[in-house]
């Protein structure tokens, strides 16, 4: 609604402005004229641009310390250049393979389990015909989104604590095993995925439900007349209708896929499961903040960011190849 309104306002403005000028100006004058014509829009743009320049782009300059041996006392400019030394240290370190594989495995689990699950839940909710039920289920599964990871981790510890945890006793009692979920490296990833599902799935459905609400009911009616069952309707009407949304969400999530969630993982890590728990995010914290190796940590972070950019670009390229709209 509001978007439409804005469009009409813009159009009327444009009509009035161009209407008064006559023929289109050329060259530099054209540029000036264009600027002049839209000056209020540029002014409105200014705060946004300023925000991005000051808070998003300017700090990126600091990434230069990845190529230096940064000592705070000497400052960013005074610290000596070391070229690619920090990077070769990273790639040569025995931690690197472990970090990369841990990060990628967690990212893949997120991508192949959490991401589709959100769509499935949205579809399930969409099929609910009883509005009261639909609304209350929706609200209930949103709630975990508002809990901090600290609380989620504390709950997990309570439920799985060795000896006293309810779920610990339940599973080990039923299966007669003696698995300590919190310290066993094998259970680390399942726990992380379960936590992510519990916390993020409900919230993630919002955007799909919005897309689903936009599907033309006439298509369903037509499909019913053609004799389509529920499955066929979902497959041939619903899913194609939200395909664009899914692709955009997928590309967007590719960018942050290596952000495996610092807090969540940091809180669930201990000496016994660190071999599978160390990811780039926790490592950067550990190397940079705890250990004070700022340059090295920056190099690690920079590497992670570059992988992220490549993943976005790749996903975008694939989606265009498949005939979908990319995001750029």
């Amino acid at each position, binding site marked *: 609604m509001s978007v439409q309104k804005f469009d009409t306002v813009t159009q009327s403005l444009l009509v009035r402005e161009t209407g008064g000028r006559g023929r289109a100006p050329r060259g530099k004058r054209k540029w000036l004229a264009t600027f002049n014509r839209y000056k209020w829009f540029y002014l409105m743009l200014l705060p946004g641009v300023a925000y991005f320049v000051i808070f998003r782009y300017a700090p990126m300059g600091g990434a230069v310390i990845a190529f230096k041996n940064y000592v705070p006392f000497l400052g960013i400019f005074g610290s000596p250049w070391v070229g690619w030394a920090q990077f070769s240290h990273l790639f040569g370190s*025995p931690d690197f393979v472990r970090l990369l594989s841990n990060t990628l495995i967690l990212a893949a689990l997120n991508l192949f389990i959490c991401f589709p699950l959100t769509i499935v839940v949205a579809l399930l909710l969409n099929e609910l015909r009883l509005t009261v039920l639909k609304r209350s289920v929706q609200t209930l599964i949103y709630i975990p989104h508002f809990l901090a990871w600290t609380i989620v981790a504390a709950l997990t510890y309570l439920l799985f*604590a060795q000896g006293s945890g309810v779920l610990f006793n339940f599973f080990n009692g039923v299966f007669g095993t003696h698995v300590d979920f919190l310290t066993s490296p094998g259970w680390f990833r399942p726990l992380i995925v379960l936590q992510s599902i519990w916390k993020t799935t409900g919230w993630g459905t919002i955007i799909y439900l919005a897309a689903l609400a936009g599907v033309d009911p006439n298509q369903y009616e037509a499909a019913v007349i053609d004799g389509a069952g529920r499955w066929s309707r979902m497959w041939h009407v619903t899913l194609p209708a939200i395909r664009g949304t899914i692709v955009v969400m997928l590309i967007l999530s590719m960018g942050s896929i290596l952000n495996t969630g610092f807090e969540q993982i940091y809180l669930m890590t201990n000496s016994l499961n660190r071999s599978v728990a160390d990811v780039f995010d926790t490592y950067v914290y550990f190397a940079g903040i705890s250990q004070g190796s*700022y340059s090295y940590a920056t190099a690690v972070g920079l590497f992670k960011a570059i992988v992220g950019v490549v993943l976005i670009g790749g996903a975008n390229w694939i989606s265009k190849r498949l005939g979908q709209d990319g995001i750029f």
Partner: protein
Amino acid sequence: MKNTKRRTVLASAAALCATALALSGCTSASSTGSDDSSASLKTLTVMAPYLTTQAPAATNPVGTALDKVIGTKLKVTWVPNSSYGDKTNITLAGSDIPDVMVIQGKDSGFVNNAEAGAFWDLTDYLKDYPNLKTNEPDVQQASSINGKVYGIFRARDVMRTAVMVRKDWLKKLGLSMPKTTADLLKVAKAFTDDDPDGDGKKDTYGIAIPKWPGGFATNSPYDAIETWYGAGNDWITKGGKLEPSFTSPNWIKALDFEKQLVSGGYVNPDFATLDSVDWNQPFLTGKAGIIIDTYSRARQINGLLEKQDPDTYQNMVGVTGNLVGPSGKMHALPTAGYSGFLAIPKASVKTEAQLKSVLSVLNKMNSKKAQIIMNNGLEGKNFTVKDGKAVAVTSTTATDLTNIVASYAQLGTNVTGNKFYPPAQPNDYDQQQYDAEVKTMNSDAKHAVYNPAAAFVSQTYAQEGATLDNIITDARLKYIAGQSSLSDVKAAIQLWKSSGGDQVISETNDLYKKSTK
């Protein structure tokens, strides 16, 4: 139409104003406090940790009294102890650096900065100040970076390692206080298997151990047991050379002992995840009967038990010092003798003249009068003096004051010895207990195994020490938990060496050679 246009203008103007406000807010916030450095030394800015639940208020009676004694207004930035290390590294990288910083350890952030010249080298200055010229030069040397003293160390008791055991459980099972590590195993086993609380259920265990927040050789219960076993303290000397303690065969023996404790179920099953804040809980709730830590924790637990039940607490906690290892000889685990130091950044204290005035303030802060305020408090308000001892006043205001004093104690250096009043214990039982502890402490100190490499900071260790330490502490815990085998531990030691440990060893030995010449 005109109306719409005006609205747009208004909207964008409003947006601009908002941005401008936000920006100006930012700049003014970051520029405060950077300029009131020590030119006249009316004020001195200090960053320090606090271990109580709440930081002292900006103006408080203890601070005011202290300011009067030293003639300078202290402006203290209190940082929670749990995040102090992180905050130190962030502060050093920032622009708002205080005049004096409590530095808790020689981690790489500090070492790199110090070696680049970010802190004043105090080696040649301290002797000019009577209250800063230490009478424990060994400790000062240990606190230095390869002989350069970058801070005034905060003196601590050399011997703090203590074992506390449930006395009533011992009595019930007919056992006596453990003296050796073999006794420890026996008692821990009995506490687990023989139902010491007499409820007919097997719901107790021997030793409570938390998830240890520190790295290798940070006075954890594991470190204590390993030293008792003769594995040294962080480093050992072998054939005139220094080697990490975990390369000694005694270390592996100690690991086997620890494994025996865990696999027998004599340790709390969540020893890898129990938050160290909750360390006392199993002991207080009657689930565990042994804690290996410090005398301070023993006193703390004693106090908490007294609150729970003032009638029976005297039968509960037995305290002993270090235990004798399998060799039959006592190897006691000491502290470093200090807990961090007060360092003076050059970014805020720019000239030598300024440095001298800062040092003279710190000198006054270690006078007897100042020590009493920072450690005992305000005489007549939260303590009174009787027979040369400080007797605590019991009232809520007095307790509040004592809490503030506890934070100010973090600023104390006491490098010339403790000149404040020793605390009088509230009753005869506590006094006896206290005197006995002091006695054990002193006799243990004679058998202290010091870290021969305490003063040496190898460049590689400074850069990667924390990650290297993790390799060893993780391998240790995995082995004890039964997740890995002895060959995995040896592989971890190899990994430690190949990941930079070999350089650490050779650099440390170079520094060692230089110092013995």
